[in-house]
């Protein structure tokens, strides 16, 4: 990419998305605190700060589930693509909500006595050999640190300088954060309140996430495993009619990177199938405004020459393509032309 960095590359869609997400967070916390103060009254009353701590904590957990669902959903259906384009903003918001939960909890539970509040909170636990004896705040703090690292390195500056490969490995730490949060809940609130509601919510959440990820992963695995033999450098990508207008199919010759074969108003084009931004699968994208658009973050390339529109200067390799008896043939000789 060659364009001066800006703090946030907002456009009308992203602003709308962020406003809706912020409104949802505010509404969730307000409803949780409001309903909680109505339901828990009398002897079982929960104080307002504790309700706020819980509301922010539950909100962060729900947001993390949504963030984790967006990726596989976008691989299973194009309808989730707009969510994927804006996932980074939702991830940063999740960190901010989790940080508010942690800050309030530290101030509320850790400010008794003269000790360091962070030390008090991080060592909070019961006694004996029960799960309640585990310092349950520690996994929560580890998860918060992972979310911080992800939010802090979410800008494209970090992606460009760490490199897509390392950046993606760092950001896969979110899976570890998710497991830590399950530990934080199971060894924390589930110990003081043996409510079946927590049990069901955690298990349903985990089932939904793993089901979506496995379904999307198996689909991608099958597609990635398929390779086609080239005959004199030409590979049969399939029937032209099988490619919907504005969409693509992926072909991969043995020993070569995948190629995205797009059908668009100008005909058929074949370009390198891996986005220069984060390595997104271009064959799963669409033609938007005359450009091939990556399904992950909306990076664009002109189908005829693989060049990104100005002011960007990325260029992906293109491949010669021809249609013979209604079948699309792609020439694959190396990765560039």
């Amino acid at each position, binding site marked *: 990419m*060659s364009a*001066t*960095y*800006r*703090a946030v590359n907002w456009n009308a869609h992203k602003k709308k998305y962020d406003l809706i997400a912020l409104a949802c967070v505010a509404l969730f916390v307000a409803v949780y605190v409001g309903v909680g103060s109505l339901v828990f009254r009398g002897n*079982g*009353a929960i*104080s307002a700060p*504790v309700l706020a*701590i819980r509301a922010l904590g539950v909100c962060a957990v729900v947001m993390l589930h949504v963030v984790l669902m967006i*990726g596989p959903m976008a691989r299973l259906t194009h309808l989730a693509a707009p969510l994927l384009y804006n996932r980074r903003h939702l991830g940063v918001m999740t960190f901010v909500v989790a940080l508010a939960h942690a800050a309030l909890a530290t101030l509320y539970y850790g400010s008794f006595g003269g*000790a*360091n509040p*962070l030390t008090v909170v*991080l*060592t*909070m*636990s*019961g006694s*004996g*050999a*029960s*799960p*309640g*004896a*585990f310092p349950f705040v520690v996994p929560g703090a580890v998860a918060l640190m992972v979310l911080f*690292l992800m*939010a802090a*390195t979410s*800008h494209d*500056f970090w992606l*460009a*300088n760490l490199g*897509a*490969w390392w950046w993606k*490995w760092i950001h*896969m730490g979110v*899976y570890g954060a998710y*497991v830590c949060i*399950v530990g934080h809940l*199971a*060894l*924390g*609130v*589930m110990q*003081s309140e*043996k409510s079946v509601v927590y049990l069901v919510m955690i*298990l349903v959440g*985990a089932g939904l996430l*793993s089901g979506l*990820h496995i379904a999307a992963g198996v689909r991608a695995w099958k597609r*990635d495993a398929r390779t086609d033999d080239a005959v004199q450098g030409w590979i049969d990508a399939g029937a032209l009619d099988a490619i919907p207008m504005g969409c693509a199919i992926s072909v991969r010759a043995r020993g070569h*990177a995948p190629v995205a074969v797009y059908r668009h108003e100008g005909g058929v084009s074949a370009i*390198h199938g*891996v*986005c*220069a931004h984060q*390595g997104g699968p271009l064959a799963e994208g669409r033609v938007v405004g005359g450009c091939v658009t990556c399904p992950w973050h909306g990076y664009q390339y002109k189908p005829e020459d693989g060049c990104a529109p100005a002011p960007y200067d*990325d260029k*992906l390799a293109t491949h010669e393509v021809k249609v013979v008896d209604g079948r699309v043939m792609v020439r694959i000789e190396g990765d560039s032309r």
Partner: protein
Amino acid sequence: MAGMDWFLAILGGYLAIGAVFAVAFVTRGAERIDANARGAGWGFRLMAVPGSAALWPWLAMKWARPRRVVTLTPRDTLAHRRVHLLAWCVIPLLVVAIVAWGWLGGVDPTGVGAVSP
């Protein structure tokens, strides 16, 4: 508690050095290692502060010996996708094990194993 105090002191020291480094890095260093940071506004520079404070040893090395980044043909993310799939085959097992321990592992006799109203 002493162990936790030591850990927090070391972490605090690391981040304090990082905060000082970050101020210098976002004002001078970022554009040395990345041409796209030249002329960038204060919004971008402020956003780069937390990451710079967290990753300061690595950034300090990059700043000391800036290397031109060579853009290559982007690599396929096959390995990442397979790790995603593998991870989500293992994560449900971990979740069930943790939740089962929390649910069936007995009750804390002191009752202070978790936050209470």
